[in-house]
């Protein structure tokens, strides 16, 4: 007797080999499946856990830590790490741990804003270019090519110099550099989705273009958008720190990781390594976690990838 008869209809569904689930019914069901795939994945837990820990650290550490990021204590300057100052003190006697925590806050907040701004602007350009097409598509994509003609960090420098030095203009520069990547990616996604049979079917049952876009095209773009945002977040952290390092981003005395490394540079070679090393490690951990997250998301969610489980 076949197992199908014993188990009944419900059991038969569980006998399907993994990865061959029936097609998802709607957007809600697809989103539920995506989140289930993500939450049950062990390899995504590491980068996700690191990033969540960093966010919690950035929120709570500056509140509860006994020193402020800019409180000077010249008598206790350049002290090596101890129980009182776990990351030591810098040349002005400021507590490096307090500055590190403040730097985490600044990096995470500004990089998040940069990522969201880039995703909205670039995403809209890509969506419009991919769905409207024609002349506006050509103009938009040539504009994106102009941005891509610059090495990324150098265009961000140009924007910062042109608009005036500071963390805000550095953020605008880094966001601008990320726009064409979103625009190109989402344009090609829009073109891919537009050619799928169910879009034709939607038009056939009388849906308007605006409704097809909002109901079908945009939701189907989301996985690719999230993958790109995770990668862009890492680049944003790195780009902001680099601009601050050369003096175009956060200004003295702001406790920003890149700026802290510049400040500690000359002390690193005379033995006071802790001023620059801790912010550098902060950058390394944040950016590596973001790129691991992006890679794993791509494995799990990318509709064009071989591992796609949706």
């Amino acid at each position, binding site marked *: 007797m076949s197992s199908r008869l014993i188990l009944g209809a419900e059991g038969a569904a569980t006998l399907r080999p993994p990865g061959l689930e029936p097609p998802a019914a709607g957007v809600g069901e697809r989103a539920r499946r995506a989140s289930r795939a993500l939450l049950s994945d062990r390899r995504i837990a590491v980068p996700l856990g690191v990033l969540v820990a960093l966010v919690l650290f950035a929120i709570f550490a500056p509140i509860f830590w006994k020193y402020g990021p800019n409180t000077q204590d010249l008598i206790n300057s350049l002290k090596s790490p101890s129980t009182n100052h776990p990351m030591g003190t810098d040349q002005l006697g400021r507590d490096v741990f307090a500055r590190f925590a403040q730097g985490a806050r600044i990096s995470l907040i500004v990089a998040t804003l940069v990522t969201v701004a880039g995703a909205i602007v670039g995403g809209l350009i890509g969506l419009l270019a991919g769905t409207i097409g024609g002349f506006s598509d050509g103009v938009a994509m*040539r*504009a994106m*090519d*102009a*941005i*891509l*003609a*610059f*090495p*990324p*960090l*150098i*265009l961000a*420098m*140009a*924007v910062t*110099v*042109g*608009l*005036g030095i500071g963390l805000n203009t550095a953020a605008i520069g880094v966001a601008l550099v990320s726009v064409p990547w979103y625009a190109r990616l989402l344009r090609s996604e829009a073109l891919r989705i537009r050619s799928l049979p169910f879009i034709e079917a939607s038009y056939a049952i009388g849906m308007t273009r605006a409704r097809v876009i909002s109901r079908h095209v945009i939701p189907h773009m989301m996985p690719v958008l999230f993958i790109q945002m995770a990668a862009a977040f*890492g680049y944003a952290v*790195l780009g902001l*720190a*680099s601009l601050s*390092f*050369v*003096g*175009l981003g956060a200004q003295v005395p702001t406790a920003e990781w*890149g700026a802290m*490394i510049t400040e500690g*540079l000359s002390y*690193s*070679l005379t*033995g006071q*390594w802790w001023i*620059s*090393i801790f912010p*550098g490690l902060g*950058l*390394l951990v944040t*950016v*590596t976690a*973001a*790129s*691991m997250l992006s890679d794993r998301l791509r494995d799990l969610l990318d509709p064009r990838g071989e591992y796609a489980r949706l």
Partner: protein
Amino acid sequence: MGAVVAKRVLGSIGAIFGATVLAFIIMRALPGNPARLIVGPLATPHAVASVSHEIGLDKPVLTQYWLYISHFFQGDWGYSYADGKSVKALIGERLPATIELAIFSFALTMICAVVAALLVTYRQRPVADRILRGVAYVGFGTPPFFVALLLLIVFFRSFHVLPGPEGRLGLQAAPPPTVTHMYTLDALIAGQFSTFWSSFVHLLLPAIALGLSSFSFIVRLLRANLLEVSREPFLTVARGKGLRRWTAFRRHALPNAFLPTLTAGGLVLGEFLAGSVLIERVFNWPGIGSLVFDAIVKQDYAIVQTFILLSAVIFVLVNLVVDLLYAVIDPRVRIPSVATA
């Protein structure tokens, strides 16, 4: 072939045009007085007015754009506010140091990437593979200036095996007689082996710091391509007709896997241009990067502006050369019908 080349050249001209327009908009059309940017914050209103006139801020926008790009392409890049020298002379002075570092770093990056990728794919070392993937992840996510600092702390400060941030040569050494402006080559030509050795060890740490993120990128690409190509049926055929494993690998797998890496050349150059600004200062390397870094600190923007536009033009041109090279090597690009057949 001709059509492919023409299309790419036209595309590159378009990209350079777009880049100049974008740079012009950022530097001129946005709020903030560009003349003030050029002469610096301490200059008198008179100096601001005279520079405004000189760069044509009182003329219509299109004329301004024309002046902007014609000055740029004629090599008329203005004067440094900080020391009065022409920007062209300053950049010319600093160029050889940056080029020597870039070439050395590029060679080091490529050799290490190919060797590492071969080790984990051809020799199939799973432990090395895991380590390499870890290094590639961390290397890609680490800012180059932090890598530079770590290298200095480890190799100079702790173990005293490599020289510290003292530029291209030791303090006592005199530069070799100038032939190519590359200290390593010049020293070899003059037969000064101690100078050669000194300039070589001075190059090592900056080259690693500059190349690490490109290495991470290329090694991942190469590893993935090698694994993909080694599953292709044509490799089974090559082995089946009696080629030895290494011969089949070298003749058939490597060239095919290497092609996509070529395209990464453009990306590497972008990394190097920005990277020079980020790491040369750390090593006191007397190249363009530290010139630009100092110019930013002194708000000496004539230098920064020139560097930015120059980077874009070089970036586009190198990408063009890479694409054309690709077309020469890869028959699928050279002869469109092959790809579809």
